[in-house]
């Protein structure tokens, strides 16, 4: 039995169809990322699994239970980290954790959780005075205090600095190692790639693709070798050597439309050496980013990059 199971989920807000036939599953010990641009239906999907949203149709099971009908039996076994913290602003990490621990039959020791999430030094600082990263870590700690079998994390790394992200990733990896099922959402491709065993790409309420980062990368454009060197190389000459089209876009980034065999990469390296050009980087597989952009549409990604600050990705 998968820990999380969602078949043909449809969720409507009035006339709007937020989620339109999504099916996904996640197993114990697995980290699954639901990836997509803003408004793709990521949060709605997760909130349906948490029991907050009534599906218009579809079948939902978490640990074999219906999230709404079996709500009381399910909540002690799951941990939820909402997009907005949802923590009493006056409570510091220790008080908040002790309060949440009291809700669960067999809570994790709060002192240990504070240590593990790097909150021991700010254990008495009220939530509203914590940094963004500390707030996210406390929010995660509150989701974990009941020793859940399934954890739902909605944009766990939003607004967190790189070091904080690394710490969150370590905790999430540790959870999966101990057999917890983790379902998270993100609108950042790199985060999905680093965090998840499997990625489900959502757009406009529908699943576009699903698989490991490597599997998804292969869905991108055809075989190619990409490399970076100095700008202005003679792409026609290199193309003639390789017997393939070579393009430069943007400057200093090159792409040869040819299968990445060892001979081809050796030929590129040799040609660059002949022309006194450094080889800065070379990728022989298509990148996940390329695949993602091809799937989701470059304009969606651009629109997101233009929106300000850490609040992006919030839906309500």
């Amino acid at each position, binding site marked *: 039995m998968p820990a999380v199971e969602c078949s043909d989920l449809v969720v409507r807000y009035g006339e709007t169809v937020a989620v339109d036939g999504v099916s996904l599953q996640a197993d114990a010990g697995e980290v699954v990322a639901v990836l997509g641009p803003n408004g793709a239906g990521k949060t709605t999907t997760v909130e349906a699994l*948490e*029991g*907050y949203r009534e599906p218009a149709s579809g079948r939902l099971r978490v640990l074999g239970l219906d999230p709404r009908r079996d709500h*009381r039996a399910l*909540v*002690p076994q*799951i941990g*939820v980290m*909402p997009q*907005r*913290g*949802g*923590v*009493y*602003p*006056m*409570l510091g990490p220790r*008080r908040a954790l*002790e*309060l*949440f621990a*009291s*809700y*669960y*039959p067999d809570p994790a020791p709060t002192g240990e959780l504070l240590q593990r999430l790097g909150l021991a030094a700010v254990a008495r600082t009220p939530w509203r005075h914590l940094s963004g990263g500390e707030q996210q870590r406390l929010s995660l700690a*509150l989701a974990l205090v*009941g020793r859940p079998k399934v954890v739902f994390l909605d944009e766990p790394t939003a607004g967190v600095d790189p070091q904080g992200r690394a710490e969150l990733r370590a905790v999430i990896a540790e959870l999966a190692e101990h057999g917890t099922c983790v379902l998270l959402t993100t609108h950042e491709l790199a985060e999905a790639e680093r965090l998840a065993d499997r990625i489900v790409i959502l757009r406009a309420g529908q699943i576009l693709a699903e698989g490991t980062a490597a599997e998804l990368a292969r869905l991108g454009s055809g075989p190619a070798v990409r490399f970076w060197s100095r700008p202005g190389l003679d792409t026609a000459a290199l193309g003639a050597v390789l017997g393939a089209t070579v393009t430069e876009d943007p400057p200093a980034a090159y792409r040869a439309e040819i299968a990445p065999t060892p001979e081809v990469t050796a030929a590129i390296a040799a040609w660059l050496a002949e022309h006194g050009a450094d080889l800065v980087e070379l990728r022989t597989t298509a990148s996940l980013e390329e695949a993602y952009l091809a799937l989701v549409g470059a304009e969606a990604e651009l629109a997101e990059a233009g929106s300000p600050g850490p609040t992006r990705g919030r839906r309500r």
Partner: protein
Amino acid sequence: MRALWAQLRAETWMTLRRGETLLVTVGIPVVFVVFFSRVHVLPTGRVPAVTFVVPGILALAVMSTAMVALGSATGFERGYGVLKRLGATPLRRDRLIAAKIATVVAVELVQAVVLVPVGLGLGWRPAGTAPVPQAVGLVLLATVAFGGLGLLLAGVLAPEVNLAVTNGLYLVLLLLGGMLVPLSKLPGGLAALSRALPAAALSSGLRAALGGGGPVPLESWVVLAIWAVAAPAAAAVSFRWE
């Protein structure tokens, strides 16, 4: 039970540490009792000012806690997504509500412990037959009524709007509720309206119970009982958890 107890402790701790809550629940009532007992500006006639003021301010104190403090805190918890998050924990909704009610009662006890000695110190002498049981009964009914009103507003309005509306209502009920200004001083139409409000029912009820001016009028019990049923029922129907 463990969850209920922890929730009650956390809610009480938060309530008693919120500066603006302490101001409205304890600070303002104490200032009013002292000021209006010493400075004789209220038209209390032959009745000593303190005899008129203390029951009125006890009524104000109940309204401050059950309506203003409960309502504004709950509104912000809703706005911050706290209530939504609690919905995904094993803390049951009835336990959360029970903890909030118990917190209101705990704060009211703190108010009584502060206000009653201040009143006694100013020369207030409660009179009448069985003043305490009658007063406690009125306060409990009023707590349910005002708590229902506070939650009714907190459950539908945005937190900042709720804060403004709740404080505005507090001021209106303070002026029209017979707490400082006798209802007899209000224009006829307004006085009739006031008598239908829980604030006036509570203040005149407490004044009768504690002042020895005869039994608590039936009207007070009836008006409070109606509000105590209608307000929480309306809140329960309309409350949006997120």
